[in-house]
């Protein structure tokens, strides 16, 4: 990229592109949050596991971003998309931009319970999505989904085990896990909302609408929660809207950090 192309990306957005970016950006942003754990996990084996999940999701995100760039048709690539879009052109679930280990500028951080819970809930969702995406009319997407499905199964299992260890461990870990559930739950509703992007995807055979994932996800989460002694909170009217490009106050800071070097060195080669 030369200095002339080092400018903010304005997407030519279509429902199809937005659908793919929802998946790509969710993986990218969650991988970014997970990488904050490097060197800080409670035990060395989990440092490796968290980095492993970050690598898997980053790999999926790269494949999806590369594919999105091809769909978008302006000659973009994975890095132009990751480093040169502004917040309102990201379409990740708001859940994954929430502070994880590190506090936000004006919000507290979370603990290991928040992390394994978010990993479990997200992996369960991605697993359901990837399973359905294997039959996408888009062969590239289907191929990415097939590979991602294996990884999602592993992430789901690994983190389900931790949710149970912590939910049914000590009094303190149970308390922390219950608090993590309270913090996370409102953001799960967005995982199953339905809009024109979902409708177009389902209708055209691109992939499942988010609603279509709810039953399987709910069943698996309920099972693990029961084994962990956790209660499913009631649904509320709260709806996060990151998948529409309208985010929480946290994404701006995350992108400022993630994108800083490309902005400091427009036209740089790495």
């Amino acid at each position: 990229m030369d200095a002339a192309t080092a400018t903010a990306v304005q997407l030519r957005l279509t429902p199809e592109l937005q659908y793919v970016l929802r998946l790509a950006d969710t993986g990218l942003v969650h991988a970014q949050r997970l990488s904050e754990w490097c060197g800080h996990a409670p035990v060395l084996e989990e440092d490796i596991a968290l980095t492993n999940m970050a690598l898997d999701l980053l790999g999926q995100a790269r494949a999806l971003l590369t594919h999105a760039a091809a769909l978008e048709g302006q000659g973009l690539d994975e890095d132009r998309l990751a480093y040169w879009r502004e917040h309102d052109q990201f379409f990740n679930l708001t859940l994954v931009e929430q502070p994880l280990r590190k506090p936000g500028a004006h919000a507290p951080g979370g603990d290991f319970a928040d992390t394994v819970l978010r990993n479990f809930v997200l992996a369960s969702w991605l697993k359901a999505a990837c399973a359905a995406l294997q039959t996408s009319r888009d062969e590239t997407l289907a191929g990415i989904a097939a590979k991602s499905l294996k990884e999602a199964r592993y992430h789901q299992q690994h983190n389900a085990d931790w949710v149970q260890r912590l939910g049914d461990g000590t009094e303190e870990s149970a308390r922390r896990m219950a608090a993590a559930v309270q913090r996370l739950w409102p953001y799960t509703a967005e995982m199953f909302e339905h809009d024109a992007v979902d409708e177009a995807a389902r209708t055209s055979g691109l992939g499942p609408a988010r609603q279509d994932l709810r039953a399987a996800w709910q069943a698996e989460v309920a099972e693990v929660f029961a084994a962990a002694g956790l209660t499913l909170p009631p649904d509320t009217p709260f709806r996060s809207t990151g998948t529409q490009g309208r985010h929480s106050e946290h994404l701006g800071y995350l992108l400022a950090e993630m994108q800083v070097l490309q902005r400091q060195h427009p036209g740089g080669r790495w």
Partner: protein
Amino acid sequence: AALETRFEAHVGEGGFIEAKDWMPAHYRKTLLRQISQHAHSEIVGMLPEANWVTRAPTLKRKTILLAKIQDEAGHGLYLYAAAETLGQSRDQMLQALHSGQAKYSSIFNYPTLSWADVGVIGWLVDGAAIMNQVPLTRCSYAPYARAMVRICREESFHQRQGFDSLRVMMEEGTEAQRAMVQDAVNRWWWPSLMMFGPPDGESTHSAQSARWGIKRLSNDELRQKFVDACVEQAAVLGVTLPDPQLKWNAERGHHDFGPIDWAEFWRVVGGHGPCNRERLAARVNAWEEGVWVREAALAHARKQAERAAAQEQAA
């Protein structure tokens, strides 16, 4: 005494010692300290690199760095496992690290101030580490030697990736990127030379270490090898090593180089380097913030065992 004589003879001939073999107390103690401190170095060494992972400038570089950090954690695992065969638990070793009793490689007490530091760490720091470690692949203590084989292979890969990252910036990058690389080299060169330890004349334990196959080349010999290799690599990159006295000496067949600031070395080893307190605090905090997690895992495992036992009784 007879055991010890046989031991020394076996090792002297290049023989290997496994965990189940007899070994002198002093050998056990020395290896335990060296292997555990090597493990600590891998773990602490994750931190200066973790400092740039959220800001990696491309997704490919982020992937490479995450994988490198993951490898280093894995190296820590192998080494703690190797050290545990000598009779101490990982928790005890970590306790020694957190209390300040056990050391880790002092190079990690320097800050990573720019993205180029990541590439320079790959080139110079991993390069020096490999030079220190290759001889250890034939160390008399077999679990350590085997771990070193795996680690050296992965670290060679890391070194090549770091060097490649610098090469791209120097050959294809902007002037600002080239200046960033040169600045990183200026800051990491002398500390990398210090990774080989004090001059031979001031080093302790060398004779015994040599006999036990822990140390086959002296500090100064390894340092000279490193300088010679780096001069060639620096020329390939187009960077200047920050030593005006660096010069080929045809008589010696090696490069002469300038004096190392040993006052800085001892100051940093002694706890007063730029990041000593922060590195240790990060590890101690991770440990302390993880107490409730580890306790929960134990409690859960106990509950599962009790449930399994109860089920067996019922059946």
